[in-house]
């Protein structure tokens, strides 16, 4: 099943009007049919940002649970596991009150309140102490310690963020599995820099899905076609930059989502007000600071990022979705940066405003109304592979429901132009799309149309 690429950018006057809910449902049905048919040992689902990945996981898990066969679920972090436990427990409490969820944890782990008190959830660090739950769920790292048991069914969540060696450690635990993830986000990484395994189909530095598909090219690959999170204003640019061959549609049409500023700027021509006005009008804003080479913790840029977030609150920003309006609280704003020391610098600049500030790695899978992003290449002299990685920019630019404001030093296009990718091409290693350099150029070209300069 593929996305109807012909209709991807078609207008409303086209013969077949795009019905996002129906499209998404059709895709989900096809995925569940392939998975439960037991024809394939693995089914892969590619999901663009906010396309209902967790909803799919919960729905697939409920279907397997209804058959009474044991299911294991693998996620990558403890937060992801807890989120899934929470959602699954609610779903099963409604449909299958008898079903139980076993949350396998590391020793010394204390479950957060939201799952500690759920009646159908047991938390323990010992598999046998969980009894025989309908669904057993744990992180990949914890599953690697489980031996001598197999499950008929498995669901692997965030499979593109899982490294192939973690899949190797747990693959003997299941007979067939559903692999769900977002190919556009950050690839798993290693602190070791080695070309030793380049081109091998089981390269341990590749993602679990990449290795799975290279060794089993016949497995079906599905795609969730609709992003429910991203507003219409982000559809074209995110799809073009990060999903160039597959694309996706936004679940909301033009003008259905928006950012409204409660108080007018009062005639203020300050750049920060101007960039907020631009973001409210178009969904995007680029606050461009004067060109300068800086250390990573550029204090001016950190202050500007903090000021944008603070000004959003001051101007009583309101998130509009269809005909509903909700005030944007600090909790609905996120700030993203590339490095941890930048995150720390921005936190200091923010003072006690309770806005989430984090690196791209940690923002993966999260959703906010407005995001403020410190561009990874801001103030840099060079563009290293780390800073060019398309997944990093994709995560930072696709967390928002209403608008995204990027803060950067001038000169990113020039840095990009002087640092075309020069990495070697390795034999028998599939070329990875999208290319980070091209994705960065595409995004900058788009942002420049929404630029406000600070002089």
């Amino acid at each position, binding site marked *: 099943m593929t996305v109807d690429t012909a209709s991807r950018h078609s207008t409303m006057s086209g013969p077949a009007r795009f019905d996002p809910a129906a499209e998404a449902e059709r895709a989900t049905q096809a995925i569940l049919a392939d998975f439960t048919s037991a024809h394939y*040992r*693995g089914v892969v689902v590619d999901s663009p940002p906010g396309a209902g990945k967790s909803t799919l996981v919960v729905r697939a898990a409920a279907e397997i649970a209804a058959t009474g066969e044991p299911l294991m679920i693998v996620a990558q972090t403890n937060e992801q596991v807890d989120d899934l436990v929470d959602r699954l427990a609610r779903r099963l409490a409604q449909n299958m009150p008898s079903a139980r969820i076993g949350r396998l944890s590391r020793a*010394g782990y204390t479950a957060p309140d939201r799952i500690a008190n759920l009646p159908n959830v047991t938390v323990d660090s010992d598999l046998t102490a969980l009894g025989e739950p309908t669904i057993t769920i744990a992180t990949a*790292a914890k599953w*690697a*310690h489980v*031996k001598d048991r197999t499950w008929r069914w498995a669901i692997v969540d965030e499979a593109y963020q899982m490294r*192939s*060696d973690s*899949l*190797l*450690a747990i*693959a*003997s635990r299941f007979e067939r599995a559903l692999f769900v993830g977002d190919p556009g986000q950050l690839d798993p990484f*290693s*602190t*070791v820099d*080695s070309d*030793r*395994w380049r081109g*091998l*189909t*089981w*390269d*341990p*530095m590749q993602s*679990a899905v990449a*290795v*799975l598909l290279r*060794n*089993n090219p016949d497995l079906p690959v599905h795609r969730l076609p609709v992003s429910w999170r991203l507003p219409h204003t982000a559809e074209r640019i995110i799809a073009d930059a990060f999903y160039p061959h597959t694309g996706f549609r936004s679940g909301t049409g033009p003008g259905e989502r928006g950012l409204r500023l409660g108080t007018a700027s009062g005639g203020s021509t300050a750049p920060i007000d101007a960039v907020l006005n631009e973001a409210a009008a178009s969904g995007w804003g680029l606050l461009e600071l004067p060109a300068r080479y800086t*250390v990573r913790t550029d204090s001016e840029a950190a202050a500007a990022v903090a000021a944008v977030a603070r000004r959003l609150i001051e101007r009583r920003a309101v998130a509009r979705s269809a005909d509903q309006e909700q005030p944007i609280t600090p909790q609905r704003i996120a700030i993203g940066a590339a490095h*941890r*020391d930048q995150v*720390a610098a921005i936190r200091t600049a923010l003072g006690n405003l309770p806005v989430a500030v984090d690196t791209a790695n940690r923002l993966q899978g999260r959703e906010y109304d407005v995001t403020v992003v410190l561009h990874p290449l801001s103030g840099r002299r060079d563009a290293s592979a780390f800073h060019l990685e398309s997944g990093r920019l994709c995560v930072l630019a696709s967390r928002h429901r209403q608008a995204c404001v990027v803060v950067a030093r001038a000169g990113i296009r020039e840095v990009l132009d002087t640092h075309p990718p020069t990495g070697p091409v390795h034999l028998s290693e599939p070329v990875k799309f999208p290319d980070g350099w091209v994705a960065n150029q595409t995004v900058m070209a788009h942002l420049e149309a929404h630029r406000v300069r600070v002089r």
Partner: protein
Amino acid sequence: MSVITAYARARAVAAGVAQPIATVRHVHLAERPLVFVPLTLAGEANAPLAAMIGTDAEKPTLLTVPQPRNRDLRFAFAARLADIVVPYVDSFSHEVEPLRDTVCAVDAPQLIVPNPMGIEFTRLLGRSTRFRRTDGPYAVAPGVPLLGRWLTYFAERAEHPGSCALLALTDALSLHWATGQSALEDTNLAALMAWIDPPAESSGAQAAREAENPKVWPPAGPATDPEFDNQVLAPLIRAYDTSAPDSPARQRALDELEQALASQLEPTWHLMWRGIAHLRSLPPGVSVAGRWAADRRAFTDFHRYVSEGGAPQPRRDGAVAAAYRLNLLERARTTYEAERAFDDPLVMATHRLTGEAFQGTVVSVDRERRVPNEKGNLVTRPLVTVHTKDPVRLPAGAKVAAATRRSQTGLIVSVETVPDGTLVTLELSGGMGRAKVPPPGSVPALDEQLCYSGVLPENIPSPALPPVEETPWTHGGPPQPYEPSDEDAAEVWE
């Protein structure tokens, strides 16, 4: 590049001489290293042209290949190299000390090449010799496949962070000094040494510029100077090719070739020993001996494997071997980074700048604090508060250890900003024995200066992977076991 290194480079430019970025030596230098300077023929894939090798600065052995395109001459070179490398390696296998239920060599071989390209040459030479057979249609000298196994061993050890079995001298030097040139220029041994140890009355920058003249300082290899190739090497090889075997003309060509190649290698040879001596002048870091012990264990294991007739290392890692090795390398890397910082305040400074470590004074101690553990038993967990002016970015709950008290872990309980810095309160565990009251000296004292770091060695073992014969379907299923074949032995050298 860390801020400290960037700053040191800027200072090197200003001062005209390389600046130290380490206060101790982080690499082990063997008493009797085998220095190896190889040269290759331009335009051929890893075709050896010459090498200078030996354990004595005054007595190098020169090996040359008069026609590097001739396969037999290449293997003759490999055989002569084997006659040096294999006895050198074997000489370390005799003296052993007990280690658990087995033994470990008290010292291990160490190979030192000029630059990272030298390591790559070693790897490829190992790759082209280890599968050879000593019988059959393409028989080679008995030492050649052994040489291949050992060179491969060295090259694979070189991938281990912190291993010193095979060192590239430029890497080892750049770990301790920052120059005023780029990292790429630092791989030129002559230029790097010019910055680190400039001749009297010359600045490092000036000396480095002169060192880049290949007529004065021939390249440290494996690539040669193109001018030399065109004007000296090509005519001599032609003279060798066109002369009749055993004729005086051939002997003359051979002599001249040896002389010419020696002139290309000798400056680097002496530079190697100068660089090694320069490194030796630094006192070794505390953890260096521990990391060398890992090299000694690896050597002992591999020597046993080879002497029991072990097969050559496979061409590529299988799925399980690759994952196992990646985990091993990652753990070695984490441990190496942590140990280096603990050994050296200048390396620790990098972590202090990024907020992953902090130095300060103990302002309060609750040394007899006892709390119930998970099982409900009372355990000694002293509380220590440190006042620091460093920018602390470690959150509560993070684990730290002090450079001077490495066996004791501190769990950050709170981080509090005060007008003149930060107060960090730690709960200590370990390193206090079993007594109810910690013995004197086992808990930091009031006013003690301490540097706590959140960059810690990796101690948790990674979970077991499936056995090779149970490689799962996701990774291609169980692989065919490797059987050395005649094809391996007959493979072209490229």
